[in-house]
């Protein structure tokens, strides 16, 4: 185990190399953006993919040659007194893994997009945005302080906005994009306030300095609880946790590769990344950890139940993503930091895989997304089917697929800390397996339920799409072995990440020490596998054996069914308690306060003066007699008022 951070460590390579990591995709963005219409789709795609591949290459080199943590300072960004925000990179285990993930999965999805977006008229724009996203995400993971993190944080939000609303002629897409951005901004506000509080508490926003200072604090310090809660609000927004998750299902309005890259593999895990980054702070705040765990657990369960009744292939995946993110937070909440990252990685593999697979299906079905109109596709789309199946097995926690290892590890951790949450996790695992296989069976099994025309056009996707699917499928299948001590003898990931949690471990050794005895461990493994298998079985009986078909939209549903089908009416609820009141407030303030109070008061001064002027005119009757009398009255008054002085 490596000992503490070495802040003074020098970067082993020239700064330019580090600059290039995010800069390459950014160049891709500039080229594709500026030459949007002038480039053919393939060239644009090639530029977009190659730049990301370049970043991947550099990241890989850094990863392979990594020896110690260090920072790279590019320039001073904002300097105001002690609020010093240099533009600095942090190169350590966490950022390297994230780099690999972002550039690696990002590259695959770029390649996939070449085929998927082939027919779109704005391919250049699409790749530009995608590259911009990769750039932002890289800034996010590379930053060595909270503000640089925030740059990437908002940057990916912007790209998410741009890509969700990519087909911007459709109002629903634009609404979804706007919703994503705004809800993310709610979280961002929390994050921003957290940063302010960090600055006020530690007089710095640099990770190294903040964590160093934090490591000397007492567990349970109020201010750190406040900081972490605020940060977690940010994470809730970005990582779609209760109650800020509603944007993510809507975000499926974007092109499918976007959903795969942004809304499954990378961006939504930024919240987890952030918590991992600040694990010292979270370790100091057990109360926050409770909140994190419960929010995570509840989100996992809640989203899974919604996933049961969704009929849009991407929506199901979206809710599943929310649910899996919930798992990750659940892990964080019980201080399973490396476990959480483990799940981030495996989830990135299998969820990206499934989204891309769904994209392949949608592509084949001429943009049909409703699984009630699919069925029996396994013959027409064999590669897609097989890879999708691997993804489903992985997410359902069936050994030896990757999801099994990470999910099981999470559940073990949770079991040690909180049995109720463990129960929730188990139920979720069951539900996950059920709705994933429901999706699989409805899509790929049974008879085809689409139109003749769709049937006629059914075809397997081109190589540029299937190749990434295959690679991801391999990763989803074997990725779990990076953290499978039982099989490979060593938990590579946990060992690798250990230095990141040195402070946390020192602060709260017990939380790290806990090792389950072998029997319990086996029992837990058995239970979680059983839950997954049970879910698959139930789905099989229901949708293959009994050939149940989901009801049409207007079918009659029982009350609980309807509740789930309508996603618990959360969107409607938010609409009623947030959107409508704000709109009404806007109208009300404008009409009644602005035009009804403030403006009339201002104008009132004018009116009073004008009225006074009119009054004075009435005195001026034109009669000399009256004037003389008034004059004498004035004289008498002046004399009378001075009488006391005489």
């Amino acid at each position, binding site marked *: 185990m490596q000992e503490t951070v070495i802040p003074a460590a020098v970067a082993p390579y020239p700064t330019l190399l580090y600059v290039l990591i995010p800069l390459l995709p950014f160049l891709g963005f500039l080229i594709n*953006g500026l030459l*949007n*219409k002038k480039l053919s789709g393939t060239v644009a795609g090639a530029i977009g993919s190659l730049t990301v591949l370049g970043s991947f290459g550099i990241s890989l080199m850094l990863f392979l040659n990594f020896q110690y943590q260090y920072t790279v300072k590019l*320039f*001073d*960004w*904002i*300097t*105001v*007194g002690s*609020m010093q925000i240099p533009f600095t990179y942090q190169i350590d285990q966490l950022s390297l893994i994230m780099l690999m993930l972002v550039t690696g999965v990002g590259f695959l999805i770029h390649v996939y997009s070449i085929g998927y977006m082939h027919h779109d008229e704005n391919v250049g724009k699409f790749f530009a945005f995608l590259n911009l996203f990769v750039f932002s995400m890289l800034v996010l993971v590379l930053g060595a302080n909270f*503000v640089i993190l*925030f*740059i990437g*944080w*908002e*940057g990916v939000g*912007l790209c998410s*906005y741009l890509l969700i*609303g990519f087909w*911007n*002629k*459709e*109002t629903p897409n*634009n*609404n979804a*994009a*706007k919703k994503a*951005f*705004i809800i993310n*901004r*709610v979280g*961002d*506000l929390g994050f*921003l*306030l957290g940063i*302010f*509080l960090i*600055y*006020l508490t530690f007089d710095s926003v640099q990770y190294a300095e903040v964590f160093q200072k934090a490591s000397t604090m007492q567990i349970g310090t109020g201010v750190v609880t406040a900081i972490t809660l605020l940060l977690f609000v940010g994470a809730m927004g970005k990582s779609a946790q209760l109650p800020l998750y509603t944007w993510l299902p809507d975000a499926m309005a974007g092109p499918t590769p976007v959903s795969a890259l942004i809304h499954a593999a990378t961006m939504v895990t930024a919240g987890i990344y952030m918590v991992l980054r600040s694990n010292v702070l979270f370790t100091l705040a057990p109360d926050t950890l409770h909140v994190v765990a419960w929010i995570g657990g509840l989100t996992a369960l809640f989203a899974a139940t919604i996933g049961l009744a969704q009929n849009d292939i991407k929506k199901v995946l979206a809710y599943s993503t929310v649910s899996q993110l919930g798992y990750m937070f659940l892990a964080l909440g019980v201080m399973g930091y490396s476990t959480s990252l483990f799940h981030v990685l495996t989830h990135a593999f299998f969820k990206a895989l499934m989204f891309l697979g769904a994209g392949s299906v949608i592509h084949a079905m001429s943009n049909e997304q409703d699984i009630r109109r699919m069925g029996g596709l396994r013959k027409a789309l064999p590669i897609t089917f097989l890879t999708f199946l691997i993804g489903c097995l992985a997410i359902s926690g069936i050994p030896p697929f990757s999801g099994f290892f990470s999910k099981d590890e999470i559940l073990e951790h949770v079991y040690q800390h909180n049995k109720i949450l463990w129960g929730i996790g188990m139920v979720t695992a069951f539900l996950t397996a059920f709705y994933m296989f429901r999706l699989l069976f409805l899509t790929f099994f049974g008879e085809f339920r689409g139109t003749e025309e769709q049937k006629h056009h059914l075809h397997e996707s081109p190589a540029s799409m299937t190749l990434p699917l295959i690679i991801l499928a391999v990763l989803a299948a074997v990725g779990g072995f990076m953290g499978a001590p039982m099989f490979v003898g060593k938990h590579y990931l946990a060992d690798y990440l250990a230095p990141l949690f040195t402070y946390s471990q020192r602060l709260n050794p017990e939380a790290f020490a806990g090792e389950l005895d072998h029997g319990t461990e086996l029992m837990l493994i058995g239970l979680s596998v059983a839950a997954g298998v049970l879910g698959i079985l139930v789905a099989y009986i229901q949708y293959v054996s009994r050939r149940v078909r989901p009801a049409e939209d207007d079918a009659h549903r029982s009350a609980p069914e309807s509740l789930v089908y309508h996603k618990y009416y959360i969107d409607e609820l938010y609409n009623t308690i947030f959107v409508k009141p*704000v*709109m009404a*407030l*806007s*109208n009300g*303030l*404008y009409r009644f*306060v*602005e035009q009804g109070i*403030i*403006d009339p008061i*201002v*104008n009132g001064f*004018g009116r009073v003066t004008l009225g006074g002027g009119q009054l004075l005119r009435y005195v001026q009757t034109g009669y000399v007699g009256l004037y003389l009398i008034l004059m004498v009255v004035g004289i008498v008054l002046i004399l009378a008022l001075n009488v006391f002085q005489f």
Partner: protein
Amino acid sequence: MLTAFLLFFPVAAALLLHFAKGNAARVLALGAALVEFAVAVFAAVSASMNMAPGNSAAAYTPFSINIPWIESAGINFHIGLDGLSLLMVLLTTFLVPLIILASFRHNYPNASAFYALILFMQTGLIGVFVSLDAFLFYFFWEVALIPIYFIAGVWGSERRIAVTFKFFLYTIIGSLFMLAAFVYLYFQTDVNNAGLTSDISAFYNLTLTASQQAWVFWLIFIAFAVKMPIFPFHTWQPDTYTESPVPATMLLSGIMLKMGIYGTLRWLLPIVPLGTSQWGKLVMILSVIGIIYGAIIAIRQRDMKRLIAYSSLSHVGLMAAGVFSLTFMGLQGAVIQMLAHGVNVVGMFFIGDIIQRRTGTRQISELGGLTKHTPLLSVCFLVLLLGTVALPLTNGFVGEFLLLAGVYQYNPWLGAVAGVTIILAAVYLLRMFQRVMLGPETSFTSTIQDLTGSELAVLVPLIVLVFWIGLFPNTFLRISEPAVLQILALVNR
């Protein structure tokens, strides 16, 4: 002498313009504005060489002129440039040529008068930013108002008369309060029988009781509050912005609004520190109310210009809050945000104008789907919009980050409430962007032409600044740092 040149060159050019007609007038005006900008940049460069970090002693000396104006009364023609003034002068001289260029597509009748007034106003604005004598400051403060009144009143749209009338009355009434305060302060300066003087240093050195300061504070504050404007002194603003011709709106929102904040920094906080500490909290609350109020009202506006006007109200509220937080971050944030807001709001109004000219309407509901035919326009619009919603690496972020940090430092709850602006700004701006640029086309927007060269010539410099300030704010922060530190030292004395 440089300062004097900056001050008087535009008015000299304005006088010359009288002999030019039509197109020649606007070209001449543009040329003059560019010369002015070049000189300002020269001043900035030579100043930043003198102003090494920590060398705050050099703040006033190199560019100052101090000669008697009304000798008997101790009123001097005292002008100078410190970092703060310099940045404001840079902003003014940067924006004025763009504003002139932006008006090229309009054929304003009586063009020579129109452009002469713009240049005349530039002198007034620069005068405000360089004056170091209270009465000189007031003098230019009002001088800047007269041309804008005529620009807005003569070349504005239908309701201009009533609206600009209200604007003129409102602002001038506000500033009369300031004059009263200045006169009062002026008569307090004769402490050691050294004679009355209205020099800024004499005002800084006054020792007033807390109750005196409270009065003076309010008198001066009202002038600045009306100018900025701070809630609830703002009702002139949306109407004026909406009814004015675009160059006037740009001048008002891009530069004139900053007079209020600049004035607060230079002529309010350091002069009445006790009054500020006594009433600053109330002002903070008003500002924060204004932030939220403006943003919420902006959500449902139907007219693009009016929406941007309310957005500006919201943003300026944040600047005011940052200033009154009396924190280093808040003040520096306000400085950088003045620049950023100047760039963004001018760009936004220009884009609104382009759209209105192309489609004949400013009503958001009548627009839509512009982006299909106008990719360049949508990119420019989006960039400026992102600057306004304070996306990191754009200019708006640096300002809002520092401002919110300052307000947060002052009071976390106020900071949290003020922070809601980043959500609401996204709400109303994205709503506007969506309804105008995205979605299905309407009958107004089905045939529309993308940006022309001269329009790009306006927008590109603005966009460059959006990213320059966003990426390298230290360029500007460093210039203003000594001046801001000096102000803070005076406030905390």
